[in-house]
């Protein structure tokens, strides 16, 4: 059994609808894995079950030897799994810097009353957080925007900020839900480069959902394909591209009569 990350027969039912059925995967540290499938296939639902936004109907989420199924989202994040959202969810009225600083909050040691009294030990921590947050922004080439309101950034930058914010939570596993959605080809290319860079530099493991085939095929080492909640294929990019079921699912042949 793998100790790092494993999904074991996850099932998610919404009333009569089975959104995800028997989803299993083992991911090794440092891997870059893709999850693809047509709209409504259940991809985001898989992420929601991992991060605690949904409690699976059955099955287990195993993380570093622990069963974290059904843990609340903030606890999952504190354990080292961070995510971005398909529809951008920034703290729009806060600055870019503050957005990233929120992710550091779970590492803070000083208690709230120390903050209220402005004790030196708390001030030191605030300084540390700010310094590290600025360093993160530099890494994602957002440093010059630190004091802008997050909501005022152009779309591509907002996507980047979402990734920066998730990274700032110091994950070992990063889940990206359609990070290239709405980006132009130029931005998409830069994003692929960035994801590979941060993976290498931070020895991160990345599990990502994406519709842009060029992006996924170029970036991921292994891909899983979902259709109507069922895993229809798994393998390397070239295997997936040749897989008859995948081609069928994407060309929309009426196989679910």
């Amino acid at each position, binding site marked *: 059994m793998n100790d790092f990350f494993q999904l074991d027969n996850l099932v998610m039912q919404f009333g009569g609808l089975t959104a995800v059925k028997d989803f299993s995967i083992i991911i090794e540290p440092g891997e870059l894995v893709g999850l693809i499938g047509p709209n409504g296939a259940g991809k985001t639902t898989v992420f929601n079950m991992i991060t605690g*936004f949904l409690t699976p109907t059955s099955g287990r989420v195993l993380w570093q030897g622990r069963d974290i199924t059904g843990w609340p989202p*903030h606890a999952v994040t504190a354990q080292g799994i*961070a995510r971005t959202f398909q529809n951008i969810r920034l*703290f729009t*009225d806060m600055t870019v810097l*503050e957005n990233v600083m929120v992710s*550091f*909050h779970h590492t803070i040691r000083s208690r709230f009353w120390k*903050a*209220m009294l402005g004790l030196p030990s708390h001030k030191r921590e605030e300084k540390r957080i700010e310094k590290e947050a600025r360093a993160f922004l530099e890494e994602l080439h957002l440093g010059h925007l630190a004091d802008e309101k997050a909501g005022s950034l152009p779309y591509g930058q907002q996507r980047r900020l979402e990734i920066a914010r998730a990274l700032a939570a110091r994950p070992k596993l990063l889940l990206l839900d359609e990070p290239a959605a709405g980006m132009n080809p130029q931005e998409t290319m830069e994003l692929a480069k960035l994801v590979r860079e941060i993976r290498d530099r931070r020895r991160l493991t990345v599990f990502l959902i994406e519709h842009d085939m060029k992006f996924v095929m170029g970036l991921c080492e292994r891909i899983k394909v979902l259709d109507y909640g069922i895993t229809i294929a798994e393998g390397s990019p070239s295997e997936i591209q040749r897989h008859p079921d995948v081609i069928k699912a994407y060309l929309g042949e009426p196989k679910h009569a």
Partner: protein
Amino acid sequence: MDTSTRNALCTILLLAVLAAVLYVFQKHGTEYQIRILNNMAIFITLAVSYNLVNGFCGILHLGPNAFITIGAYTSALLTMSPAEKQLSFIIEPLIWPLSVIQVPFAVSLIAGGIAATFFAFLISFPVFRVRGDYLAIVTLGFGEVVRVLCNAMQSLTNGPLGLKGLTPYTTLWWSWGVAVFTVVVITKLVNSSYGRAMKAIREDETAAKAMGVDPFKHLLLAFLVSAFFSGVAGGLLAHLITTISPTLFTFFLTFNLLIIIVVGGLGSTSGAVIAAALFAWGGEALRVVESPMNLGFITIPGIPGMRMVLFSIILMVVILFARRGIMGRSELSWDRLFTALRLQTKA
């Protein structure tokens, strides 16, 4: 001189000026002026602590009157002498040990704050299970429950008769001391990592959770801190008006606070301070609208409650035309002031 030393000096200077003003009024001010100043300070305390929950966490909490009531009763019961209590509680005697305890004013204020915090903790579990309109209704319900209990629990609150003849301990020093402390402490909280977590919950609770913020823990923190200062302010209020009864702290009081923080700008402490001061002053100054008016050709009889009508109109105008209130979400700060001054002199 770096900016932080400059800012510290400016703050000390401002406090010194405030102290001097208070000193002058305490010595030479009329009773009317002193009452307005006391009201200002207490409303500042109430508004700033209420704003922590409603403005910074983005929660529509409609029960601060419950915390104020609890603070007021606790504090009053603790400063009355055993003899006074025996005289007041004529229908049913006050339960032991409250009947024999008497503590200094300062201790009673802290006890009022703690009692309110404790109550807030008890109701926090049902309150934070829900959000939005539901949370508003639940908190509104608790505000009413406390009022009804005050009426019913004769042997604890003296029922509808209330508590009379409290010693007027609340001086300008007490009320403003508490107000300044509240503003400083809440400002520090709001500007800290904890405050950022609260704002993140306000902006997007789902995203905040995904970034490792536990919403319950932080909403609870804001709720309890807010309840504590509301309780202390309740104690100050009790020893200012010297008579308290269950009808004193109704939803009406909550509504006033809501007007203050909306007009000041939800999520701005400076806005809450400014609006609270204006409200306390306006509340007195506008008494004229409730007295009979002679317009020469016609005499309008005094209409009690006219001030409230005016305040409600102001609220509606703000919500319709200037939703962000006086300050929006920004704050007055020395840095901003000096930047503005520099621009002025350059221009």
